[in-house]
């Protein structure tokens, strides 16, 4: 039996190893990216499917609270009804807030006005810059259906391990804004016809 010995050029081998290491890093990054996309898809699916299973307004509000607390890491938040005449925002339910103190939102507050007027998500760069009732604001999420804002979610304090809302979180909030808005309007219509 003959033993074949390899005596490759060390420089060629080093280059080959470098290429394989680079490929390995690329593949790992792609796998991590795919995993992150899967998690985002799972979050979106969970959000939309839960909202579409609601029939009553209080069910919609509970699901919105669950999403904001569990998927986005917010520990202080309020869900508000938005009444077009005014507009006036009245507290429906929330997490970690004093219902008396946070019973209404100041209608002249710049962020509140902006969210209701545009129907678009508002994420202040500096949460402490324009506080509401003395609390820093992480995001205002107008719940809308067919161009009409019917509710507003105000996210105040995020959990300590959640420093800010990233782009993926904002995509999720956009989904909440549209699907919760529609679910809320449908639930109100259903309740009104009883």
């Amino acid at each position, binding site marked *: 039996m003959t033993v074949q010995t390899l005596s490759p050029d060390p420089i060629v081998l080093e280059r080959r190893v470098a290429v394989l290491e680079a490929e390995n890093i690329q593949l790992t990054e792609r796998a991590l990216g795919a995993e992150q996309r899967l998690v985002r898809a799972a979050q979106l699916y*969970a959000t939309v499917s*839960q909202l579409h299973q609601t029939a009553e307004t209080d069910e919609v509000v509970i699901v919105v609270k669950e999403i904001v607390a*569990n*998927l986005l*890491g917010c520990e202080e938040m309020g869900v508000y009804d938005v009444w077009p005449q005014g507009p006036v925002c009245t507290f429906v339910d929330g997490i970690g807030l004093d219902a008396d103190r946070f019973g209404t939102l100041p209608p002249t507050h710049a962020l509140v006005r902006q969210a209701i007027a545009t129907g678009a998500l508002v994420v202040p760069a500096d949460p402490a810059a324009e506080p509401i009732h003395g609390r820093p604001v992480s995001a205002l999420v107008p719940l809308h259906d067919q161009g009409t804002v019917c509710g507003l979610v105000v996210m105040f304090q995020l*959990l300590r391990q959640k420093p800010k809302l990233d782009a993926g979180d904002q995509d999720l909030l956009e989904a909440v804004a549209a699907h919760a808005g529609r679910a809320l309007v449908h639930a109100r219509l259903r309740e009104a016809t009883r």
Partner: protein
Amino acid sequence: MTAPKTILCADDSLTALTMHQMILKSHGYRVVTAQDGFEAVTKAGAERPDLILMDVVMPRMTGFEAVKQLRNDAATKGIPVIMVTTRAEPKVIETCFQAGCNDYVNKPVDGAVLLSKVRALVGV
């Protein structure tokens, strides 16, 4: 071919359960669910999962109490438990380990972190 590993997910939030289920199932795990600590203890005895993902704050029985019960039962005391906690303070984490959990993840759950901890405890 080996049977898929079974993971029991216990959480009172259907949104969180749906998300955890989707992530774990897409990686080949079989998932059973419970919506409170009491149900988690019952299902752990019946299903003998390979791992339990346990929320802390749940109705009827908290995650801490459920883990203590699991550890006191010969049939379930060896099942690894990952606690899902809202609070990240060292004192809360210490309480998780004192209750008998093997690891923890913070809310909001980072899917990649969750999967790496699951793999470390039960494999792929």
